[in-house]
């Protein structure tokens, strides 16, 4: 059955998911993000606490789910061209991180959910992992 897990639904039923839908789905607080940033469409996400791995493996346009809160998370998002960042486990990012995200127009969400719960809620509304990008 493993191969079927990697199959992307191809019946055209995949719903359009915007960042604002994700805010609702996980009860996130919007740390940085105005009306227009929250309109960004999200199809894939990656959960990672290792910025080295994000830089090596993440595709552009993904949403990053992480437990890190430092400025390098935002800089990684800018450089790797990510759509936004969710900070999990209720961690409050440093003021510098929030200010930088605002300046660089990187949407920043915070949730009290842990990483796996966050991923599972996002999967329920149709967000997929980056391995699906090849299909």
């Amino acid at each position, binding site marked *: 059955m493993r191969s079927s897990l990697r199959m992307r639904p191809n019946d055209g039923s995949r719903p359009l998911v915007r960042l604002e839908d994700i805010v609702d789905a996980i009860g996130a607080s919007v740390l940085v993000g105005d009306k227009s940033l929250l309109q960004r469409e999200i199809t894939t996400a990656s959960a990672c606490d290792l910025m080295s791995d994000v*830089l*090596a493996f993440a595709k552009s346009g993904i949403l990053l789910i992480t437990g890190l809160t430092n*400025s390098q998370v935002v800089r990684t998002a800018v450089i790797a061209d990510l759509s936004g960042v969710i900070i999990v486990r209720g961690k409050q990012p440093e003021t510098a991180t929030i200010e930088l995200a605002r300046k660089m127009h990187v949407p920043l969400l915070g949730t009290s959910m842990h990483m796996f719960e966050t991923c599972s809620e996002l999967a329920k509304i149709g967000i997929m992992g980056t391995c699906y990008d090849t299909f």
Partner: protein
Amino acid sequence: MKDNIVFSQGFEIQGGDFVRAGEASCQIVEALRELAFPPGVVRRAGIAAYEAEMNMVLYAERGTLAMTVTPDAIMIFADDHGQGIPDVELAMQNGYSTATPEIREMGFGAGMGLSNIKKNSDKMQITSTVGKGTKVHIVIEANGARSNS
């Protein structure tokens, strides 16, 4: 050659300055976007510059990160004063790292940096002298890629 330079900029990098780490590479990305390079080219150059910048912040005393853009290529030079790399070939291997736990807590030091620079560049040259420092020269080809050139 000099006449062909479209844009150039340079940054001083301070070893151990984790607050500003990545700032120079973000400015490089912004400059390349303004120069109208396609997103894929900007991303490759940005990732290569960021990895080189982080290496200097994490391991060197101080260094410079410089970028020169010609119509044909984006060239990035990372030149640091620091401990150097005893075995460059070994350091290029995925997963090889001498990072401290503090570095890993920041989300870096996984031993992917140099190999990721290589992956994202068209040419990469690295020379290092133990006790003196390391020079990394990165070239990203951009033949006619700019949308307004």
